[in-house]
């Protein structure tokens, strides 16, 4: 057999069975030298499981993995690493209190005299690998002091130093800004040119078309197909992803003009040193205000300030003309404001609690029969929302961690719906959710506005902002750079304002 003919990495018939679930069913996947192979699929489709098996973290129940024609059996992530496979996880496992160089050479520190670790040598080598990807990072900095995007660069340097031939990127775009992502794409292009095989996992179709050579789509643990990017279009890919067609161009319904609508929330001169600067806007009844901005522009901080999770230095928040004094989310909720946070899994839901418990938590005091909680009422209340929002769960006692991202988001929404709140703030409501569920969530948010609620939607995805908003606030470095009506908002304008280009 000629090794140069064989694929760099070839997985055949990979099957992984969990009690009651077939996570992967006879999946084939291969990576050639010098190609970027995108891996796509809805959440729960089996992408992560496949990656973990290739990366040696999980064992497989059936199938073979070959590297350049030779069959291999990975006993551990370390073993896979030694064989030349590097996985760059979305949540980069780092030791923040160690230096960049120490992280790169973890457990294989270069030794000097007396078999002691030689820091000089380690820093020298680390600097060399960082230079390869043109990352301007001092290897002696503590990793925890770097931004997430720079931490990612360090991971790439580490992968290179491991002589990795297959580098797997697990949804890097979820944590990177546009500029950083561009940089990453350049690096990926050069890695590809060196003949390495790249696996790129993403939810964003634009990226797949921009960077991919081939794409493999998984659906419900099965292979939906592998295609050359050149041979398919967006529609085909979406169809492969969801197994049905979705009209992406659909625009938002409802009122497009906010004139004549009653103001609900007025924010005047909100300031927080170094984070928010002179934020003022008015939110109307039945309006959806989109908030766009790059990562770090202060969008999440604004949301947190509005519901009292962070304190502000100055500024007023008025609800229906009444000045609010909010110093905790508890008071915000009492006054009618709620937040569905950006980090759904760690801040939005309780993963180890049931669907029922999650939905009812804030409303418990209304679900009593006499002095004590009535589980009958609780179950009825939860069941009501499960059917109203079409939350897919086998039963009410299912732990939320077993639900898909979209259904988890619906649980967060359900939590607030029964509470007669006035202002709903959604921070990245569709992040990490599959295409079909995104539409559903957006539909639910629009329905809220139609019912007369005032809604703020924060998003990093321009198409989403354009589809959902009545008006768009663009943030840059803690300020609202522009407040646009939907008719005026275009992709170009949003990008320009978000990068601080103040036109007019």
């Amino acid at each position, binding site marked *: 057999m000629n090794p140069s003919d064989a694929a760099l990495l070839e997985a055949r018939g990979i099957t992984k069975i969990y009690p009651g679930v077939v996570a992967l069913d006879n999946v084939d996947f291969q990576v050639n030298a010098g190609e970027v192979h995108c891996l796509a699929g809805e959440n729960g489709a089996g992408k992560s499981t496949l990656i973990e098996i290739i990366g040696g973290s999980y064992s497989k129940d059936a199938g073979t993995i070959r590297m350049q024609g030779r069959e291999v059996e990975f006993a551990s992530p370390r073993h896979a690493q030694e064989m030349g496979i590097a996985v760059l996880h979305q949540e980069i496992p780092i030791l923040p209190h160690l230096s960049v160089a120490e992280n790169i050479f973890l457990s294989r520190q270069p030794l000097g005299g007396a078999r002691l670790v030689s820091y000089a040598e380690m820093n020298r080598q680390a600097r060399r690998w960082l230079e390869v990807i043109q990352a301007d990072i001092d290897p002696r900095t503590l990793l925890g002091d770097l931004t997430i995007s720079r931490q990612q660069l360090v991971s790439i340097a580490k992968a290179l130093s491991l002589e990795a031939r297959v580098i797997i990127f697990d949804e890097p775009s979820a944590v990177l800004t546009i500029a950083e992502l561009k940089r990453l794409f350049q690096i990926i292009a050069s890695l590809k040119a060196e003949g390495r095989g790249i696996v790129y996992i993403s939810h964003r179709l634009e990226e797949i078309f921009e960077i991919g050579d081939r794409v493999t789509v998984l659906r419900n643990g099965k292979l939906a197909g592998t295609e050359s990017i050149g041979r398919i279009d967006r529609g085909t890919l979406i169809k492969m992803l969801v197994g049905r067609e979705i009209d992406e161009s659909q625009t938002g319904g409802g009122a497009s003009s906010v004139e004549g609508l009653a103001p609900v929330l007025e924010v005047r001169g909100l300031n927080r040193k170094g984070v928010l600067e002179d934020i003022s806007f008015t939110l109307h009844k039945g309006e959806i205000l989109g908030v766009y901005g790059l990562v770090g522009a202060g969008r999440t901080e604004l949301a947190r300030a509005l519901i009292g999770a962070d304190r502000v230095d100055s500024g007023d928040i008025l609800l229906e003309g009444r000045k609010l004094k909010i110093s905790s989310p*508890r008071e915000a909720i009492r006054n009618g404001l709620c937040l569905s*946070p950006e980090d759904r899994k760690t801040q939005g839901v*309780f993963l180890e*609690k049931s669907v029922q418990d999650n939905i009812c*938590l804030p409303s418990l005091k209304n679900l009593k029969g006499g002095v*004590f909680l009535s589980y009958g009422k609780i179950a009825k209340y939860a069941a009501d929302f499960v059917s109203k929002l079409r939350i897919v769960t086998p039963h009410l*006692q299912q732990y939320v961690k077993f639900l898909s991202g979209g259904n988890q988001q619906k649980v967060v929404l359900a939590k607030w719906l029964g509470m007669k709140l006035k202002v709903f703030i959604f921070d990245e409501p569709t992040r990490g959710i599959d295409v079909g569920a995104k539409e559903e969530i957006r539909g639910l948010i629009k329905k809220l506005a139609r019912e007369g609620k005032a809604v703020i939607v924060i998003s990093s995805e321009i198409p989403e902002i354009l589809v959902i908003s009545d008006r768009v606030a663009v943030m840059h470095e803690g300020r609202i750079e522009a407040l646009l009506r939907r008719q005026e908002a275009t992709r170009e304008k949003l990008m320009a304002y978000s990068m601080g280009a103040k036109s007019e």
Partner: protein
Amino acid sequence: MKTNLFQGFRQRIAFTSLSRYLALVILFVIASLLAPGFLSLQNVMNLLRSFSFLGFISIGMTFVILSAGIDLSVASILAFSGVVLGLFQHWGIYLGHVDKLSLIFPTPYIFLTVLAIGTLLGFVNGLVITKLKIVDFAATLGMMVFARGLAFAISGGRTIFNLDSMALFMGRGMVGNIPFVAILWVSAIVICTVLLRYTVFGKNLYACGENPVAAKLSGIDPVFYKIAVYSISGFLAALAGICMAGRLNLGEPRVAQGWELDAIAAVVIGGTSFAGGKGGVVQTILGVVIIGMIRNVLSVLGIQPDPQEMIMGGVLLLAVIFGSLGSRKGSLAHA
């Protein structure tokens, strides 16, 4: 809907919890084979009484561990409470006549005062943890040393003998065939179970324990719940202290050394997770009974206290191993 609820319920009875019941049954079988009369009403009641003292602080510990905390100060608060009770009943200790009762005020008031002091110490634990942002372990370690030291200081290191009849009743009294302290314990279990399962307080406590950040964003104040659980733990430790003093007829600063560890062991063996937000008081009873039974069986076998500790350590380790295998929550499970 009925079937849905049932399915969920069935899911919760995991293999691991079954193994705990199995361990208990085996212990009972061994014990009744070793000691004929073991299952006599008399002996069962005695056992129940002996479980109660550890039982009280284990309930408090359950609340604390549900909030993802740990309370090392319970045994010290227990000892301190017994000493305070003794002192208040022997105010004359400072006047030189130690043996005679000289109540500072009527016994029920003394009980209330002792309970209030215990609650206060727990409250201080909670304040230190939440306001000074000291980790639970360190804060309660400080209180553990402090309260024990205080117990020695106010008693001058002496044992205070002879309490009044009402105090004795707390530890030794019988209602019909049933020890009063056991009735008290079972009542505490019932009240706390209802508190955890059927009140907003309980539900919110579980939420705070699992994820304080999400709880806060859901409008729950985790600080309040943290302070509350430590206050409850302090209260129950004081209650255990009163009953223990009554049982021994002593106010003794050296009592219950190392019991905080037994209480933690009982909670963990019962299956309440150190990660917080999972478990409950009913499970803890199982832990208390298993620990009590093992000690009982070892004593019946004539094994000395020191090797007993060794065996208890092994049992605890096994329980944690089984617990973490079941839930995949062990610290290395994701490494």
